[in-house]
């Protein structure tokens, strides 16, 4: 990470497109995000924001276009390969491992790092214990960032909505991504929780040296933390630029409020 310069583009997307049954869900979508940037992707419902996330993470394969993460081509890679290349995400409709504990949810995120072989596992050899201890420690550190350490032993499915959203971020961070995609992180949170979340997101960016791209409808959060924005409308880029410029653009206001 240290060798990446501050001004270098970590994500480079050019003319991405996908259609479903003749409908152009995303069309001619381009985007570049600088290292350690906090970037916002906004737009009215159905504009194709989540589809962009699904394209970036390999859930959908684009009909055309190019995605480069830190210079590495992502098109054609599977979801898990893309994660290993350095993208982690959260989901609009929360997708936790509900029947695992909060701690275990985060530990699953370490799967690429804290490994041991099958023999260690089934015979409970010392190496297993050692690696598990390490994972536990690291996972608790991560949970503390999100103030979830006291809930570590609960089943993820029993957390409150806001806590579940935070746990998803923690789990994504456990995979040590270069780029973190947050899909409506503040959805369902009250304004105090949202304020908290804003601070946490900033803190995460600095502590984990991660670039963050987020989808959000809460304009307070967007204008509060995003440095630059892309506005999507009907699958196409409507506007791109510095947050304040974009938010005050008449075309953007029209797209949001209608005619």
């Amino acid at each position: 990470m240290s060798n990446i310069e501050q001004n270098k583009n970590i994500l480079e997307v050019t003319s991405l497109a996908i259609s479903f049954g003749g409908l152009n869900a995303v069309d001619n979508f381009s985007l570049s995000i600088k290292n350690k940037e906090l970037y916002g992707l906004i737009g009215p419902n159905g504009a194709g924001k989540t589809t962009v996330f699904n394209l970036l993470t390999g859930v959908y394969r684009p009909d055309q276009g190019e995605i480069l993460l830190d210079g590495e081509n992502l098109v054609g890679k599977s979801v898990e390969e893309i994660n290993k290349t350095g993208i982690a995400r959260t989901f609009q409709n929360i997708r936790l491992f509900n029947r695992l504990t909060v701690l275990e949810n985060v530990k699953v995120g370490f799967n690429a790092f804290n490994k041991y072989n099958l023999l260690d596992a089934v015979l409970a050899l010392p190496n297993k214990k050692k690696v598990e201890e390490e994972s536990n420690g690291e996972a608790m550190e991560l949970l503390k960032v999100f103030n979830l350490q006291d809930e570590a032993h609960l089943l993820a499915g029993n957390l409150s909505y806001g806590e579940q959203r935070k746990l998803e971020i923690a789990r994504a961070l456990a995979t040590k991504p270069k780029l973190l995609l947050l899909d409506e992180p503040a959805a369902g949170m009250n304004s105090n929780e949202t304020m908290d979340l804003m601070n946490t997101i900033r803190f995460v960016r600095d502590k984990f040296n991660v670039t963050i791209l987020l989808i959000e409808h809460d304009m307070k959060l967007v204008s509060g933390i995003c440095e630059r924005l892309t506005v999507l409308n009907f699958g196409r880029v409507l506007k791109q630029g510095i947050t304040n410029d974009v938010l005050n653009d008449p075309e953007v206001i029209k797209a949001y409020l209608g005619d």
Partner: protein
Amino acid sequence: MEQIRNIKNKQFIYSLSTALMVIVGYAIMQSVINANLASPLIKGLMVPLCIYSILAISLNLVVGISGELSLGHAGFMCIGAFASCIFTRYMKWLGNESLLIFIIAILIGAVAAGLAGFLIGIPVLRLRGDYLAIVTLAFGEIIKNVINAIYLGVDSTGFKFSMKDSLDLNLGEGGIVIIKGAQGITNAPRYSTFLIGAIILLICVVILNNFINSYYGRNIMAIRDNRIAAESIGLNASRYKLLAFTIGSAMAGVAGVLYAHNLNTLAALPKNFGYNMSITILVFVVLGGMGNIRGSIISAVILTVLPEFLREFSNYRMLVYSILLVTLMIFSNAPALKDFRENLLSKINFGKNKKLINKE
């Protein structure tokens, strides 16, 4: 850090109690048998109980932990049974009968069934839910059918194989037919004892609990809970599912080895290796609780012993069993009875943290 200790303690107590249950269960039953208090019926049930328990916990790995509905578990048991029994029968023909032979046979059964599970799993685990169920059912039936059509013999010149009949094998002087088509293997050596069954069950329990409480088990459960999220954090879902399926099949194979060496003859009948058997095992798993290893053993034991005790009612026993099954499923799963169940649960579990109760 207290939370971590909590989780670790819970896992440890659970694993320990499961293992202890097997040991204590064995000790009690063995002393009852030693004291001559057990009827022949009960004595004869001991090895099958171990076999059914192993089948139930291994299927629980596939269905409960990995979340894949398999209706072909008996097929893998069948492979383990025949693979190992060919070996022991051959060894018997050579004049070798010893515990070591049986230990090797167990490994052969495990490897053969595990390999079959692996090969079948590669294409099949791409299918989801009910499709997987019907395909695994089909595989179980294919395995049974094919074994019924095989004739295998051995004489001084080596192994002979045919799909026609035993005469077609053209065995020389002193040769024997090992597999006689639908009649299967006769004169198989009887190695399975209650002690061996209990030890193998114990080993399976320990291995399985360790596996579930490991990096691997955790990843497999994560994929079960949410495949898309699991892939998004870098898990290769097919690989882990295949791992669970292979281990589950191998353990079913071990149960098959015990089965094959508990009787004099081994034949692949619908009763022992057909889909009905797979379904019986699935019933153990579901009633014992998905993902609950201890529960699988308890329900395998109860549901095997129960029909035997219902023998007094002779013809009515399976009827009673089926009514119980339906009633139990409705009671424990009907959405309308959820509040009723939770009330009952909170009365039983009073004082415990309610958040810990798994919600459906």
